[in-house]
């Protein structure tokens, strides 16, 4: 999300400064109504403050306490955080989260880009894209449900692979880590390719024709045309799509919760699932809050670093 902030700074007119021809500072007529202005923002601000910011601060505080939901939180300093350091379940959880980040930024985004580039100027491209859009309509929970049944041992997936004579027919997809995480990443790719493709197609269709035509006349085609003309033109878009996938992958929860609940034996947990389990299954509100703080820190840091790198590139 932070990825967007710097972009919107450029894109959003109107907060300060003049707005082009004919703009002028509000005169007395405006000032008369100035006292109503806060009334227009305050409902939004109030809602966000009470339901988003207040819980945020509260969680940060709870991460410094021992609390089981009953009684009152007991302050224990940084104990929850030192405990995080040698919690084996957290190690697995971090590894899985990294797998999710790697897998979902490479596969759905990369393949989405591939399909978009191959199909955007082909006659009947819409039909080629349809198979990828169908799965996108499914929710994370619906997806987890149907794939849970497909991937169960001796289930449809095993039979199907056997039917095609492909390897993997006897794999227990959801039983061992990290195979179960990889299986879920593949499922996620199946669903998410569509939306990434859609965004890339919109982007490709809106890039200016002139430079492409010029390059064509100069004899560029195929890979060279893409690499040296189209790719640079769609950079701002790829930055955003990639950034969104990055942030979303760090927060993976729904599909894992529905397919494996993080199991078996906590082998497929992501940070978001670990937090939920610590709080609502193990009743460790303080410790779970520390995991939430860790997740927030990682997400914030990732978006910050990603944005900084991208902006650095634009300036060059």
């Amino acid at each position, binding site marked *: 999300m932070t990825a967007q902030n710097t972009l919107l700074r450029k894109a959003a007119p109107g907060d300060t400064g003049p707005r082009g021809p004919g703009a002028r500072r509000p005169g007395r007529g405006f000032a008369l*109504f100035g006292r*109503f*202005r806060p009334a227009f923002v305050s409902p*939004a601000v109030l809602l966000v403050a009470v339901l988003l910011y207040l819980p945020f601060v509260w969680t940060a505080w709870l991460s410094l306490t021992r609390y089981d939901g009953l009684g009152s939180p007991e302050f224990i300093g940084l104990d929850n955080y030192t405990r995080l350091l040698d919690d084996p379940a957290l190690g697995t959880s971090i590894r899985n989260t990294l797998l999710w980040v790697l897998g979902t930024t490479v596969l759905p985004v990369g393949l989405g880009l591939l399909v978009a580039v191959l199909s955007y100027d082909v006659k009947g491209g819409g039909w080629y894209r349809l198979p990828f859009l169908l799965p996108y309509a499914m929710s994370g929970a619906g997806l987890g449900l149907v794939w849970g049944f497909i991937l169960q041992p001796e289930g449809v997936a095993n039979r199907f692979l056997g039917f095609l004579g492909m390897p993997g027919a006897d794999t227990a997809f959801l039983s061992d880590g990290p195979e179960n995480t990889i299986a879920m990443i593949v499922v996620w790719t199946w669903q998410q390719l569509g939306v990434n493709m859609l965004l890339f197609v919109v982007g490709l269709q809106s890039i200016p024709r002139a430079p492409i035509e010029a390059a064509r006349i100069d004899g560029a085609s195929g890979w060279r045309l893409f690499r040296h003309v189209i790719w640079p033109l769609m950079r701002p878009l790829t930055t955003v799509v990639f950034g969104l996938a990055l942030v979303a992958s760090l927060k993976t929860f729904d599909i894992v919760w529905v397919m494996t609940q993080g199991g078996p034996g906590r082998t497929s947990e992501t940070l978001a699932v670990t937090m939920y389990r610590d709080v609502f299954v193990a009743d460790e509100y303080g410790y779970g809050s520390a*995991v939430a703080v860790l997740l927030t820190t990682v997400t914030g840091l990732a978006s910050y670093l990603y944005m900084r790198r991208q902006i650095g590139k634009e300036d060059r």
Partner: protein
Amino acid sequence: MRVLRHAVLVLLGLVWLAPTYLIVGNALRPATEYDPADAMRPPTDFALFANIGEVWERTELGPSMLSSLLYSLVSPAAAVLLGALAGYAIVVLRLRRGFLWFMIIYGGSIFPFQMLLVPLFVGYSKTPLYDARSGMILIYTAISVPLAALVMRNFFGGIAVSIFEAARMDGASTFRIFWRIYLPLSWTAMAAVFILEFTFIWNDLLFGLTLTQSESTRPVMTELSALTTDVYAGTPVPVALAAGLVVSVPTVAVFLLTQRLFTRGLTLAQV
């Protein structure tokens, strides 16, 4: 080159269609005839509606779809209105330190929801909001406001100030100008945000898990996720697949009917 391009598209498309076929094909199959060994074979009988009937009988998916419909209609509508009001104050009325106020509202969408769950659960439990429809509408509205504010602010920024000035000359009140001029002018942006947020809330699992308990308030995805746990162990595969398809109907419909608006929403939400 051309041929290769088409070949890659067709091949990938087939790979993508295979699971779709397995899901739809087996959702159509009569529940009693399901056998994983035969899962690839096309169904001989059409039993989708029987399976859906079974879903209705075995689970509380019906009532929870109604709850989710309520949440995903009311909350985005409220959020769009609140976001539009805020955007109007910041951009059109030029609220002092408008950018700061905007960042405060928008910043609410930056951190993961995990950061909210414990306090919301504890706080809701101490009030009548826990396991209540009002509580769900409230939190869904709150998480929808930042995006609405972002899009509406950007959109209002593109409307000429002279419109405001002319209306002011004619003696229209600040609120009237908002209601009668700015809102009607921006309905496409509002619709795009509404559709995105409708989809998001319909698909929400996390808040439903955390803040509801009883069947009458549970949103649909939370109820659906219960199908995989032991409560419903023994649900025949075709019935579960049918359930997975049924709950996707509203979002598929919205997506197909409004594909252009939807895509526009995705782009608006990012820039």
